[in-house]
C-alpha cells in the first residue's frame, strides 16, 4: 500500500477518534457530574445512558436554527466553524503511538510529524479564540461581545504562561517536535518528575485555554446570560460546545505527551522484547503504547471534569491576577531554575523551585502570629 493512503487512513482515524471521544465526553461529563453529586446521571437512553450523545445530537439538529436579524450572517456562521476547525486541527501533530510496520515501512502513528510540532499546537490553539471572538462579535449582542472579549483577554494572558511553562520542557528536550519530547521520556523519565512546577502551571493554563471551569468566564450565566454563544441555537451552539470537548481531549493528549511520557509506559522495553522484533510484534507493542497514551489522555479528560464539578468559577480579576501576577512570574522562575539545573547537568534541579515556594510558605506561616490574623466576626450560618 502506498504510504500516502496509510497516512490518510491514520489521519482519518485520529480525526474520527477525537470526534468520538468528544462525543462521549459529553456523556461522561454528565455522568461524572452526576456521580460527584450523588446521583446516577443520564441512564435512560440506552444502557447506562450510552445513547445519550445520539439523543443530544438529534435534539441539536432538529431545534430551530435562529440567526438574529441584526447579526452579521456570514460571520455568525463562521464562528462555530472556526471553533470546530481549530479544535480539530491541533490533534494533527500529536503522536498517538510509536511506529507501525506495514510492508517493511515504518509509519508513525501521527497525523504529521513536523519538527515544530508544539509550535503548531500553540499556533492553532491561539487561533481558537477567533471562533469565540467572531461568534461574540457577529451576534450583535453586548453580552456576547463581553463574553468574547473576556475569552480573548483570558486566552492571551494564559497563553503567555502556557508557552513559558513549556519552554522549560523544550529546554530539557532540545526539540520542538512532540515526538522527540515523547521519545526523550522513554524509560520512565517522565517530565512530570523533573518539571513539577511547570506541569502545574501548564495544566492550569490548559484549563484556561479550553475555557473550562474554574476559568470558564466567556460563558457566564450570572452576568453574561450565556456568554459568547448567547445568540446561538441548534447545531451552531452544538459546534461551540462540541469544540470545547474536542479541545479538552486535545489538551489532555498534549499534557500526557509532554509531561506523562506519551505512549511510553513502564516496562515497555521488556514487553516489546517479549513480543519479538518482527512486524506483528512491533505493531502489537505499538498498539499497547497507543492504549497507554489513550488511558493517560482519558484520565486527563476525567480530570478536567473532576475539577469542573469541584471548583466554582473564578472572578474575572482573580483570573487576571492569577495569570499575570502568579503564573507568568512562576513560569519564568521555573525557566531560570531549570536553566541552572541544565548548566550543571542536574535534571532534578527544578524541584528547587518547588522547594523555594514551600519554604516561603512555611516561613510566612511560622512568622505570622495567629493573633494578628484579623478579627473574628460572627456571621449567620445559612
Amino acid at each position, binding site marked *: 500500500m502506498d504510504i500516502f493512503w496509510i497516512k490518510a487512513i491514520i489521519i482519518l482515524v485520529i480525526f474520527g477518534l477525537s470526534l468520538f471521544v468528544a462525543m462521549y465526553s459529553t456523556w461522561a461529563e454528565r455522568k461524572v457530574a452526576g456521580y460527584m453529586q450523588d446521583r446516577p446521571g443520564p441512564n435512560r437512553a440506552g444502557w447506562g445512558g450510552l445513547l445519550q450523545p445520539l439523543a443530544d445530537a438529534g435534539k441539536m439538529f432538529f431545534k430551530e436554527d435562529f440567526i438574529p436579524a441584526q447579526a452579521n450572517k456570514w460571520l455568525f456562521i463562521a464562528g462555530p466553524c472556526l471553533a470546530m476547525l481549530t479544535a480539530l486541527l491541533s490533534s494533527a501533530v500529536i503522536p498517538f503511538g510509536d511506529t507501525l510496520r506495514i510492508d517493511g515501512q515504518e509509519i508513525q502513528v501521527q497525523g504529521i510529524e513536523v519538527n515544530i510540532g508544539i509550535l503548531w499546537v500553540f499556533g492553532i490553539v491561539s487561533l481558537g479564540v477567533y471562533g469565540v471572538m467572531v461568534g461574540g462579535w457577529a451576534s450583535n449582542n453586548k453580552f456576547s461581545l463581553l463574553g468574547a472579549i473576556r475569552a480573548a483577554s483570558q486566552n492571551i494572558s494564559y497563553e503567555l504562561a502556557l508557552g513559558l511553562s513549556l519552554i522549560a520542557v523544550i529546554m530539557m528536550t532540545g526539540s520542538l517536535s512532540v515526538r522527540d519530547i515523547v521519545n526523550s521520556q522513554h524509560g520512565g523519565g517522565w517530565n512530570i518528575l523533573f518539571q513539577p512546577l511547570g506541569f502545574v502551571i501548564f495544566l492550569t493554563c490548559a484549563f484556561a485555554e479550553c475555557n473550562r471551569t474554574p476559568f470558564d468566564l466567556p460563558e457566564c450565566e450570572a452576568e453574561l446570560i450565556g456568554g459568547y454563544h448567547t445568540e446561538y441555537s441548534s447545531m451552531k451552539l452544538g459546534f461551540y460546545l462540541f469544540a470545547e470537548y474536542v479541545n479538552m481531549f486535545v489538551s489532555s493528549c498534549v499534557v500526557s505527551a509532554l509531561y506523562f511520557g506519551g505512549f511510553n509506559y513502564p516496562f515497555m522495553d521488556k514487553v516489546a522484547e517479549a513480543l519479538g522484533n518482527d512486524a506483528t510484534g512491533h505493531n502489537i507493542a505499538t498498539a499497547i503504547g497507543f492504549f497507554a497514551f489513550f488511558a493517560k489522555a482519558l484520565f486527563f479528560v476525567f480530570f478536567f471534569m473532576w475539577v469542573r464539578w469541584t471548583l466554582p468559577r473564578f472572578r474575572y480579576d482573580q483570573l487576571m491576577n492569577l495569570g499575570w501576577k502568579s503564573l507568568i512570574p512562576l513560569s519564568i522562575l521555573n525557566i531560570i531554575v531549570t536553566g541552572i539545573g541544565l548548566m550543571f547537568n542536574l535534571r532534578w534541579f527544578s524541584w528547587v523551585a518547588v522547594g523555594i515556594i514551600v519554604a516561603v510558605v512555611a516561613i510566612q506561616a511560622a512568622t505570622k502570629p495567629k493573633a494578628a490574623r484579623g478579627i473574628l466576626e*460572627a456571621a*449567620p450560618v445559612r
Partner: protein
Amino acid sequence: MQLTNRAKKIDKSEMTLAERMYLPAIAGGMAITLKHFFKKKPTINYPEQKRYLGPVFRGHHILKKDEAGRERCTACGLCAVACPAEAISMVAAERKAGEENLYREEKYAAVYEINMLRCIFCGFCEEACPKQAIYLRHDQFVPVFMSRDEVIYGKDRLVEDMSSRYLREGWK
C-alpha cells in the same frame, strides 16, 4: 446583631500565601468530590423502583366489597356531602330479588362517579362513609390522564377486584 445562636466564626483576615496558592484547598475539595464519586447513590429510579409511600398516603379511590364479594356501598350520599370539592356524584337504585350476592344492602349505587380533576385527595369521603365502602389506596397513584373524557372515574375503575383485594395491613 445576632438573631439566632446558629452562628459561625468567620476569619476575614488577609489570606496567607499558602491559602492564596489555592492548590491545597483545591486538592482538598477534589478529594471530597472523588469520595462522593464512589459513594452509593441514594437515587430511587422511579418508574422501575418505587418507595413505600407510608400507611397514611391517600391515592387512588377504591369501592370496597365485603368478604363475600358484595358491594358495601349503599349510596347514602354522605361521601358526596362530605366532599369539599364536590367531586363525587351517584345514582341510587333498589336491589332486586336475586341480586343479594352482588349488593349487601337493599339500596346500592347504580352509578358512582368521581371527577378526578376536582378530587383533592383529602380523604373526607372515607371518613364520612358509614359502611366502610370507600377508601383511598395508600399504594397506588391515580394514573396520568391525557384527555378530559378520561377524568370521570366510574364504577368500572373504582370497584374492588376480588382477585387482588386491597388490604391495608397486607401491604408492606
